[in-house]
């Protein structure tokens, strides 16, 4: 019969945590790129595009991530698109986080004082010049803190990939629990590992936020 020592438990969880981190990175990059694309598209101020993007955001923020995972994992295969747990997790997390990233960044752009736009207009800058030289640099600086803050949500979101069989930290935790039946210990370990990943990000986000407020 297999017997797990505490070290076995921790070792396996640490190994699984690698996947949590990798998955988070992929989702962060994917969501970031896609969210940026949406933000740029939206800044074209085309009514139809704006409506479509609003709908997109509404849908991906309005359906539980768990459901999105189920739908991508089982749903896409049914209509003939082959996806494994990896792909499904990356796709859902990317779509999910892109909706939030887009929302954050658009918020930053809109939070800039109207006077900045007006000053550019009176100086004769075109829309693109205004965006490129005045709006985007400032919005970017403003968006760093909330972006880092949201990355914590992404890390936590990867936990849900466990329900489609992806063996990351949470899934490894429940597998080990099944073998050792010490749920208290196992889930404390799991929680601590997540905390170790997320807490520094939270602190960084808060620090950046403070710095930003002082600067302005």
């Amino acid at each position, binding site marked *: 019969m297999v017997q797990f020592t505490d070290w076995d438990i921790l070792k396996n969880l640490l190994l699984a945590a690698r996947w949590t981190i990798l998955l988070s990175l992929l989702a962060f990059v994917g969501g970031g790129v896609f969210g940026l694309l949406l933000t740029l598209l939206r800044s074209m101020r085309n009514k139809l595009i704006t409506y479509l993007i609003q709908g997109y955001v*509404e*849908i991906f*923020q*309005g*359906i*539980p*991530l*768990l*459901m*999105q995972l*189920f*739908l991508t994992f*089982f*749903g896409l295969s*049914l*209509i*003939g698109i082959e996806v494994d747990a990896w792909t499904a997790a990356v796709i859902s997390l990317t779509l999910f986080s892109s909706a939030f990233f887009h929302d954050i960044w658009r918020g930053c752009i809109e939070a800039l004082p109207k006077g900045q736009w007006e000053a550019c207009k009176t100086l004769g800058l075109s829309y693109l010049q205004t965006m490129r030289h005045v709006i985007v640099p400032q919005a970017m600086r403003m968006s760093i803190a909330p972006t880092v803050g949201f990355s*914590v949500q992404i*890390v*936590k*979101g990867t*936990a*849900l990939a*466990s*329900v489609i069989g992806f063996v990351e930290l*949470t899934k490894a*935790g*429940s597998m080990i*629990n099944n073998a050792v039946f*010490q*749920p*208290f210990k196992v*889930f*404390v370990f*799991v*929680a601590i590992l*997540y*905390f170790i990943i*997320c*807490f520094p990000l*939270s602190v960084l986000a808060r620090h950046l936020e403070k710095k930003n407020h002082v600067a302005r």
Partner: protein
Amino acid sequence: MSYQLDFTNLIPYLPQFAAGLWTTVELTLISTFGGLLLGTLCAQGRISQEAWLRTCCSCYVEVIRNTPFIVQLFFIFFGLPALGFKLSAWQAGTIAMIINLGAYSTEIIRAGIDAAPKGQWEAGQTLGLTRRQVFWHIILPPAYQRVYPAIVSQCIIVMLGSAVVSQISVEELTFSANFIQSRTFLSFESYMIAALVYLLLAILMRQTFALIKRITFKNPSL
């Protein structure tokens, strides 16, 4: 591979969906009230003059905000009984949701409180109110109004998070979808319906909160 969507076979299971939906609504209502209450109390704790209380509240907030909901849920449901606290799945789910919303709303409400001009505290103090009176009567209502949109979003996020409590056998909407899927093997259809219902629920919640706002915040601007 082609696949024919087949919703007709799901019709007999509509009552099951409805039951799941009701549980989701119930969980959401209870955890919204409980979570906001907890969050308000902790926000008060975080600006308390007692250092230990401030520390306790911020530890709670940090731990919850930096671990996944599903892990918190497993911990409460599977882990706590090992310490002698036995909770039903429904209780565990509700408590996990309350604790989760509590932590997030603590931060949100505190931001609203921090934004209160110092003069509001001073005005209350010079009128002879106690610190607690100033907090509840003067600081808190505008703080809520200030951060209302953030609170709404967080409550909706918690509602969506309730999908996860299906994992510990709470028979809410996702559980229904999963259950029906395991009986009919119509996974895609079941999930589609559930997803749509969640979406509608989220929209409905937003509307409801907007209505509440119109009724409670009578003054137009802060």
